[in-house]
């Protein structure tokens, strides 16, 4: 390689490295804002904003989904396997919503520690398999996720 080309190669490496380091620093600084949702543990630790909307993500605890028979009101517990937060919601839940499923709810924290959700999204995991295989597993993969 001629000296000129070698110099250009080093310049390019320096450019890519420099941009990489600055991007890493920026992302580090904005780390909290890059999080799409808070876990129940974060909320219990008081990290969730009190005066505006935020999102909470976790697994729906089995047996906690209670629907009001006369309206679309529903409430359920969401857990990250260390802490649990109750979410109440009025509206139609997504198809994938079920017990043990990962969900993300956007809403406000009420004074009693309940999250009043304006929107509920279902998160699906990275496992794909036919139903027969899923049935033969001791635990549903959705329950193991996260």
């Amino acid at each position, binding site marked *: 390689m001629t000296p000129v080309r070698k110099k250009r190669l080093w310049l390019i490496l320096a450019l890519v490295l420099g*941009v990489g380091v600055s991007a890493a620093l920026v992302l580090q600084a904005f780390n909290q804002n*890059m999080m799409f949702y808070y876990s129940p543990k974060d909320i219990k630790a008081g990290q969730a904003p009190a005066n505006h909307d935020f999102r909470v993500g976790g697994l729906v605890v089995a047996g906690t989904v209670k629907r009001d028979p006369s309206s679309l009101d529903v409430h359920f517990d969401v857990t990250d396997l260390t802490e649990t937060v109750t979410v109440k919601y009025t509206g139609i839940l*997504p*198809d994938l919503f079920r017990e043990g499923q990962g969900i993300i709810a956007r809403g406000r924290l009420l004074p009693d520690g309940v999250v009043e959700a304006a929107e509920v999204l279902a998160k699906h995991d990275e496992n*794909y*398999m036919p*139903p027969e295989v899923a049935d033969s597993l001791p635990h549903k993969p959705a329950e193991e996720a996260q």
Partner: protein
Amino acid sequence: MIKTEAAPSNSGLFKLWYHRMASPVWFYRISGKLLPWLWALFAVLLVTGLYGGLVTAPADYQQGDSFRIIYVHVPAAWLSMFVYMVMAVSGAIALIWRIKLAEMVLVSCAPIGASFTFIALVTGSLWGKPMWGTWWVWDARMTSELILLFLYLGVIGLYSAIEDKRMASRAVAILALVGIVNIPIIHYSVEWWNTLHQGATVTKFDKPSIHIDMLIPLLLMAGAFKVFFAISLLLRTRNELLERELPRKWVKQLVEENDG
């Protein structure tokens, strides 16, 4: 000096191949011969992949038949990042060695990459609505993929804004190299931050968490997409080459041959 006529050494052979590769005439001839084979390979992979994905693969335990959009979404998303890597590496070669062919590959990559990024975003949105319950959210994975689309559009725009094409290629190469920082961000976004998008299924150092009957068609489709990228890249680069080399003798000869 008797040995001057001896066969070239290994590094000599490599240099010969390297300079041939970079020669526009040679590239035009070889790529022309390669294209029919690539089309055939693409057809085989596409047909087997689609048949496997739409007919033989079982329905998912959670998502039912809706999961089958994976056979378009995932190959397109992988390709959107792969094309960018090809583009940035060509950019580096074009900047360091000033090889014209690398410049042409660089600018030919951009529209193809932009198209696949667009396909990944649209199919992801169509998949997200029934499964997640939303067309779009600003989570790290989706936002970084959208930035990738803007990077491609920036490359296309910058290239056409500068009159002198050699100068334009160099400017575009720098932009492509700066943007490469986004590629690891896209890939690791689902690990570094909480996102609505789930983690990696296949591209991780663990066993793929997808049933083998579903995985094989996915890999076939990914192969089909890669070959399709090779075809479109060759076609675009050949066009770019003819346009730039128009005043050259070999292009004139080629035109006369085709006319006659």
